[in-house]
């Protein structure tokens, strides 16, 4: 057995601690050690975006980050997106636009879309498509996903005025 290292981090605003083997990814730690299975593994190689999380404000694939690197970091996952039982506008718009079918890629798409709107409150369709190009969806053809993200962006802009 390899030795396990003690990690402290902040996940969705709460302090967490867990033990990690040397090769454990942040995704595995979130899912297996912390029970946060909303982040999905679709490829394990950073190609599908289903494991998207935000670390210290930056969108990453959690399958490409070692859990050991999470020490002291602030991590946001899909589980922290809603405010209690009030959905985030992106979550609500995904439902209103029927922007999901199987729903497997949805957590990653939502986290990536939130990172987009955090950085750019008024993205064009093209900017939205390129930002989300790292999140594979095989069900929807992306049409309703793009509409939902842009609609949520519009609503969030309204709320700021």
């Amino acid at each position, binding site marked *: *057995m*390899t030795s396990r290292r003690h990690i402290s981090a902040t996940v969705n605003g709460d302090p967490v601690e867990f033990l990690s*083997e040397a*090769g454990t990814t942040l995704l595995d730690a979130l*899912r297996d050690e912390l029970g*946060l*299975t*909303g*982040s*999905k*593994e*679709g*490829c*394990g*190689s950073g*190609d*599908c975006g*289903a494991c998207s999380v935000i670390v210290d404000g930056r969108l990453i694939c959690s399958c490409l980050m070692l859990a050991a690197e999470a020490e002291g970091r602030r991590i946001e*996952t*899909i*589980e922290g*997106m*809603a405010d209690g039982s009030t*959905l985030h506008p992106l*979550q609500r718009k*995904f*439902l*209103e*636009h*029927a922007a*999901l*079918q*199987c*729903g*497997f*890629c*949805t*957590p990653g798409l*939502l986290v990536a879309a939130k990172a987009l709107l955090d950085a750019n409150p008024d993205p064009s369709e*093209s900017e*939205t*498509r*390129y930002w*989300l*190009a*790292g*999140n*594979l*969806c*095989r*069900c*929807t*053809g*992306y*049409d*309703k*996903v*793009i*509409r939902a993200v842009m609609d949520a962006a519009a609503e969030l802009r309204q709320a700021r005025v």
Partner: protein
Amino acid sequence: MSEVMDRPQTLNLKVVGTRPIRPDGADKVTGKATFGADFSMPGMLVGKIKRSPHAHARIVSIDTKKALALAGVKAVITAADFPDLASEEYEAGESAANLRDLALNCMARGKVLYDGHAVAAVAATSSSIADAALALITVTYDVLPHVIDVEAAMEAGAPVLHAHLFTEGLETKPDRPSNIAKRNELMRGDLEAGFAQAEVTVEGRYTTAAVHQGYIEPHACVAAFAPDGQCQVWSSSQGQFMVRTYCAKILGLEASNIRVTPTEIGGGFGGKTTVYLEPLALALSRQSGAPVKMVMTREEVFRATGPTSGAVIEVKLGAKRDGAITAARVVLKYQAGAFPGSPVGAGSMTALACYDVPNFSVTGFDVVTNSPKVAAYRAPGAPISAFGVESAMDDLARELGMDPIALRRKNAVRDGVKAAYGPTFRNIGYLETLEAIADHPHYKAPLGPNQGRGVAVGFWFNVGGESTAAVQVGEDGSAVVVTGNPDIGGSRASMAMMAAEVLGLPIEKVRPIVADTASIGFSMLTGGSRTTFATGMAVTQAAQKIVVDLKRRAAQIWDVPVEQVDWINGAAVCLDAAKADKGDLTLAALAAQSARTGGPIGAQVSLTAQGAGPGFGAHICDVEVDPETGHVTILRYTAAQDVGRAIHPAYVEGQIQGGVAQGIGWALNEEYVFDSEGRMENAGFLDYRVPVASDLPMIEPIIVEVANPRHPFGAKGVGEVPIVPPLAAVANAVRAAIGVRMTDLPLSPPKIRAVIDAR
């Protein structure tokens, strides 16, 4: 309302045809939905598979002793741990499966037939120990020559995969084994005479590459085997009853001893209509005495599951100057992968299904190759044959100087025409879909330099089949709908909507669940575009039985004949004027009194749904080809489809858009690439390139509704038709843009560059 509707209800609908929030939506946008890999049990072991590195080899020996001796390893299995099954065909919905082949695909016995074929599996207390155990298993192979190309596999001197395989469908039984598992033929009229009448003929030879369904969720399951033989499986699949049946057969267990609970499924597209992991997880659990979880990596998904066939399609069409087709000859050669069972039969039956052709022959070859056994992929076989036929139709229109939609209209099947595959069409909406694209502004929009427009059509049968549904009314008058069909794309919403419509409840008062195999009656898997049609029919009939019962209960309370009670807007209404002062009895009021009127309110219906209306689609695609790089950009895409009746139009649109996107990937990017040793070279999403958001424009769906009289609300299947036309729609657009017919998919930049450079 009669107990069973004799014609579809299309008027005065309050719920059907609206766009409510899906009932499972909140779970899916918050990360709470439990998919295959998200389920865990206490004391669970990790199961992993040792796979063949060779495309074709005899297994000389497998030594598992060192792996078993490793601390933390609790079970090691090989084919020796499974019964050696006899060859037996099992009808499983969309396609038949041979149980022996199914078992051998899960675990190789004697021979490996493709790179990635499972040879052993382990269960250990951790993932890293399981990996170490796999490395300690020694397999000695005698490597054999392999063959993957479909035509090479058909040649007389090709390496033979199965010594017992003799071609079916020949006039005389062959005297030696062959990789051609089957030859099938559809014929009508006099082909020679038909071509003799033709004033114009076109011919083409087309190829498609093997492509994967590409669901984002890898296969995953947990299995727990109890000492008394009762076991449980939680898995992501298109049918929990399919999993139960296959596990029972492969392991020699009683079906009633296997309880399969479906997790959420992260896409299937046909690829999860079979088993890979579940029988192994059960065998590992039996040996270890602990629950075992198995999750595939993406590389395993590519190397050992799916895909659909790579194929060769030959098409010859003959027509009169006015466009009337006089003869068609189609030859289809489909890779089956390691075991017989390509979708060439469906490819043959759909090839000419859009056209009324007096003289034709369609010949199909099902060919085994040293590649993963193909699995169903959305309208299995149809996109491949349609690619050939629709490319040839485009050439024919060009030869004739005719508008491509007009040529298709001229030869279109319509009600009363006997389909090329046999039955007579009734209530089809094919002409309406053609009109829809012909009338759409897209068809007349101007194009710029290096741009081109393509048109193509497609057909899928849609199926019905066996389904069970139960509707239970709670004490407050809310309802639960229970079905046995995994919800892949929003079917819970349509099930709840149909029940709500019949009961007269708002959609929020009807909650649908997908139950395990011990909690609801048998249902065929979610596939063949059958769920909204067939399971929806069972749901509707169950709700209708409840309405009949509610009217009886109200009549009893009011002490009037049941004929004096109607059910309107979710309440019993007394038609007897003398007693009208009693007011309506709502479902909630009736539910509160159920103990005095016959007990709990609920109904279950099991049926075999007949009369799934066939589906037709007609697509327009605009592309721009970059003459320097050969890259194709999809500029605009419009897809019309007859769906009978859209129960939830937003999810119908989503099916159309998703099918188109997969078809575009098939046309432009996707392919299995093998090295000279027969190993897949691009077994990952980086190199196997499915379309991403920046590859696609908005995809405009046009919903055409020609009601299906056999469904209570007129629905036809939706999900499969939209992947049929895009391969040719894209290729025809590229033809228009560059002036050269491209016949080999995918239309990747190097191929197009080569053609442009040679122009």
